[in-house]
């Protein structure tokens, strides 16, 4: 795209842009080095006591203790457990929601739409508190229920958009060969919609993993909570160190899952091309669902990804 916008640069322009790039890179690197050094510098607090810098060994010696790592590992496992259970429920709920939304019966379609609007407009955190207080479940099930309802609603919308974007002939053909409407939906339309929307669904599951950290607020013993409880145990001297380690673990988990999602999206993206009408996109453009499907997804897309 950018290459279309201007003439191919000559040798002078290439040199200039390369120079600029190097200078900007040096500025960024200098800023990062300054930040690291500033964090590492010893600080004098108001009462005159000198605190060691943040990279000082005295702030990191707890990590020699294996029990610390075991606690963090338990926290990470709890996070993954919540994400796994919630993801399974969210997928099931998403399928149910999508069928409800495209149902031919008014009595199913309208209540489902209202429930979906309600759920998608509400913060997950409020839902967690709600479930925790009203149904007095433990914090684990409150988190799982809120996450699966919220993400189920978004997956349901994505699937609905997938079903809607199929050519009408698919449904007509299914009915014409004598399948019942339900069987048509299940065996003809749904598999295609699911495959088409798989990138979006997986992206939503990454969001779900991220959102499990909200269960921190309702007191679930997940990764962030295990970090803070150890800060309380060992003293605030270690608060930055624990934060940084928890941050790194989260980042690793999420980046791995995002990377996996991208691989799956690429593989299914090329396969589903044959069954849909949306092969008109120019091949040089990457198949970005946010660009390719916005018309079908409508404003439903928004809640996803954040």
């Amino acid at each position, binding site marked *: *795209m*950018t290459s*279309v*916008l201007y003439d191919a640069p000559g040798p002078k322009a290439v040199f200039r*842009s390369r120079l*600029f*790039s*190097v200078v*900007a*890179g040096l500025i*960024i690197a200098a800023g990062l080095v300054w930040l690291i050094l500033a*964090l590492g510098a010893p*600080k004098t*607090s108001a009462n005159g006591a000198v605190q060691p810098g943040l990279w000082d060994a005295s702030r990191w010696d707890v990590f020699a203790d294996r029990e610390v790592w075991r606690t963090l590992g338990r926290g990470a496992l709890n996070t993954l457990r919540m994400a796994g259970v919630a993801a399974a429920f969210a997928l099931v709920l998403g399928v149910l929601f999508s069928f409800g939304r495209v149902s031919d019966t008014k009595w199913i379609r309208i209540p489902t739409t209202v429930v979906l609007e*309600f759920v998608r*407009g*509400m*913060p*997950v*955190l*409020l839902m967690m*508190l*709600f479930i925790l*207080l*009203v149904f007095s479940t433990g914090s684990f099930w409150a988190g799982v229920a809120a996450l699966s309802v919220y993400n189920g609603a978004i997956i349901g919308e994505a699937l609905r958009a997938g079903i809607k974007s199929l050519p009408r002939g698919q449904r007509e053909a299914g009915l014409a060969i004598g399948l019942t409407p339900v069987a048509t939906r299940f065996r003809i339309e749904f598999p295609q919609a699911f495959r088409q929307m798989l990138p979006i669904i997986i992206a939503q599951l*990454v969001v779900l993993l*991220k*959102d*499990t*950290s*909200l269960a*921190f*607020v309702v007191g679930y013993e997940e990764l*962030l909570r295990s970090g*803070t409880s150890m800060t309380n145990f060992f003293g605030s001297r270690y*608060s*930055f160190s624990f*934060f940084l380690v*928890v*941050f790194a673990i*989260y*980042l690793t988990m*999420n*980046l791995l899952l*995002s990377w996996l999602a991208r691989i799956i999206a690429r593989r299914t993206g090329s396969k589903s091309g044959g069954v849909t009408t949306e092969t008109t996109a*120019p091949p*040089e*453009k990457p198949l*970005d669902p*946010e*660009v390719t499907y*916005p*018309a079908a997804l*409508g*404003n439903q*897309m*928004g*809640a996803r*990804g*954040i």
Partner: protein
Amino acid sequence: MDAVIENLPLFLEGFRNTLGLLLLAGTGALLLGIIVAAMRISPVASLRGFATVYTEIVRNTPLTLVLFFCAYILPYLQFSPGYFVLATIGLTVYTSPFVAEALRSGVNGVHVGQAEAARSVGLTFTQTLSFVVMPQAVRMVIPPLINVFIALTKNTSVAGAFFVFELFGAARKVTNDRGDEVLAILLAVAAFYLLVTISLGLIAGRVEKKVAVLR
């Protein structure tokens, strides 16, 4: 029900703070997002790389972690301008990559043929951008951008967990005092949130319909 009516001033104060967070963090995220998006599509490789890394890192960090950093670690590092400001900073940083991605996908969503046509009738780089690409991109960007702000509205609730008194904080306080009417209180708070999110959603839908005609 009377628990809701009794505490209505509290809820309204919370709602005001939620709106304040939404406006301040929204504006901040928009500015930061424009900068990041500009860096990401710029021809300068090092800026592009920096913006990509920034986007990836922030997008893969849970909001709770970002706000936790703002609420606990920044004061510990002797930077404490108050929790409201800290929460605004956290929400701004967290939302900015999503804004940047929305902007970028809008610009990428303009068909290449448009730029090619503009170039082939002899428009310069600036003319192509300002008369052909940008007018279309802006229109396409508005619905996803509104969606980012809807998500931001919901995300302000997380700030309530970190000492900012907004709607979620109000809900927590009131449900602590009046454990007998939890359901009514939470439904009332949900109604406030829905007021913002659904009306923003309706605007997004409207704009989307207008844009759909163009394509």
